[in-house]
């Protein structure tokens, strides 16, 4: 049969209406508005664009946003893996409730998370009160930003690693043990390599989400100039001053960073799929 240029033959009805509607809707709601960022930037000069995206306060915000997002994703990779491991491998009372609770950061509005974390970690808060005598301040410091980003990124790693651990063939571990491997060797040489791609994907998703986060961060960071301003906040600040060009320039930098990350996640997932298909 001749392979058609665009669409294979099918007896099912409704391809064209469904395809036309979904691409039109995608174009109008997502692609056209997003293109505004690129077109708006194209109307400014390179020199102006560069002076905005490399001004000291913006550079400080990149350092904080990228640094805190990276650290938060790292903490989530470690503890998210631990949580997934415990949920899959061990039995304890209330396990189903705990499992459901892991998704809370997905479901809880970010503004609510923001004010709750700020109240917890303020100097008179439940946790802040315990940390204050040790000289540790969390609310209104970069540490507070880190705490908020750990909160919102947590489910990504757990939900990415958990199904892989669940499907892992336990008999491979028996085989490793019967060949003389210690439990630690079995873990590092057999189990961990199996989960690594999922862990990496979860890490990247948590990182990408943390990079653009606004709602939970603005409350706990205190928004001190040069110290605790994240990049999304600077976009909002410029908008409030009606500096659309400046806001758009910073947005473009963030957008490109997100797209690069998204591409990376897709490549990792694509390679994982190829790996599992060939094995």
């Amino acid at each position, binding site marked *: 049969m001749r392979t058609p240029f665009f*669409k294979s033959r099918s007896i099912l009805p409704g391809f064209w209406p469904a395809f036309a509607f979904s691409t039109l809707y995608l174009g109008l709601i997502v692609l056209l508005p997003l293109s505004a960022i690129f077109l708006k930037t194209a109307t400014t000069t390179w020199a102006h664009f560069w002076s905005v995206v490399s001004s000291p306060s913006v550079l400080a915000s990149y350092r904080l946003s990228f640094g805190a997002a990276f650290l938060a994703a790292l903490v989530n990779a470690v503890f998210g893996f631990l949580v997934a491991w415990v949920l899959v491998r061990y039995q304890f009372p209330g396990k189903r409730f705990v499992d459901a609770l892991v998704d809370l950061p997905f479901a809880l*509005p970010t503004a609510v*998370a923001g004010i*709750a974390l700020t109240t917890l970690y303020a100097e008179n808060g439940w946790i802040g009160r315990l940390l204050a005598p040790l000289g540790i301040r969390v609310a209104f410091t970069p540490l507070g930003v880190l705490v908020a980003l750990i909160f919102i990124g947590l489910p990504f790693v757990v939900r990415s690693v958990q199904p892989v651990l669940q499907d892992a063939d336990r008999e491979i571990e028996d085989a490793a043990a019967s060949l003389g491997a210690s439990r630690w060797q079995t873990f590092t040489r057999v189990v961990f390599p199996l989960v690594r791609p999922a862990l990496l994907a979860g890490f990247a998703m948590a990182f990408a989400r943390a990079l653009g986060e*606004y*709602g939970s961060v603005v409350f706990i960071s205190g928004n001190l100039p040069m110290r605790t301003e994240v990049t*999304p906040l600077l*976009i909002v600040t410029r908008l409030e001053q009606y500096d659309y060009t400046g806001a758009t320039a910073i947005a473009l930098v963030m957008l490109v960073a997100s797209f690069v990350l998204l591409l990376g996640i897709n490549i990792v997932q694509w390679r994982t799929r190829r790996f599992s298909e060939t094995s």
Partner: protein
Amino acid sequence: MAHPAILGDQLSEPARRDSRREPAALRWSLTLAALGFLALFVALPLLVVFSQALQKGLAVYWAAIREPDALAAIRLTLLAAAIAVPLNLVFGLAAAWAIAKFQFRGKNVLVTLIDLPFAVSPVIAGLIFVLMFGAQGWLGPWLGRHDLEIIFAVPGIVLATVFVTFPFVARELIPLMQAQGTEEEQAALVLGAGAWQLFRRITLPNVKWSLLYGAILCTARAMGEFGAVSVVSGHIRGQTNTMPLHVEILYNEYNFAAAFAVASLLALLALVTLGVKRILEWRIRQLHRDIAALAEAGEA
């Protein structure tokens, strides 16, 4: 895949159990560490919302929720969700029908583009609509001449909400409909079903749990969105404030009890979402198991 099982069978029962398990002390400390982390980062923030909301008593709580500006915020939040969710539901069904049931060029590109709103910072999601419809935006002058307001008004809030909740339904439906294949629909067509009958009697019942699942996630996000809505709202009390924006204003005015009272409604919504999500996940897992069993029976 069969040979590791043979090796496993040769181990004596206690040795086999040991090979699969860590020592009890390690097991318990890992469990405690995981639960401690979750208690610190997830359970405590949730508890603090309710404790702060009720700290000044039920009377203050009720007053904060029934105050006119709070009611207006609740109404606007429900309105935005009531428009955004059905729109994205229809889109999700259309996109999943085209993507899962037909073969065409550029399908992978389309699937990637659908996920795009998840990769964009909420603040940027708001900004793009300001660039299009704001006073200095592309359509700003035209809208101004015709006395139409989108930015700093309700339509802008709805648009931003539609954008951030765009992928939820489609990304739940596509994998399920792909797994289900086209055989049932083809059989129905051969038996003389029309397009509408086909959709209503075959496709829709087959995907209803995933559809509901996507709609629930979509609703939760629509009602809780902060960043995108904050950029386009203009924060006019009683008019363009959604519930999360109302929480922000109250909090910044140091009216903590009221802020947490409204926040507790959103937290309750999140808890209900988690509960319903659990039940639906269980249903959908069963659906996938049925599909796998059918496929296996077909091969045999």
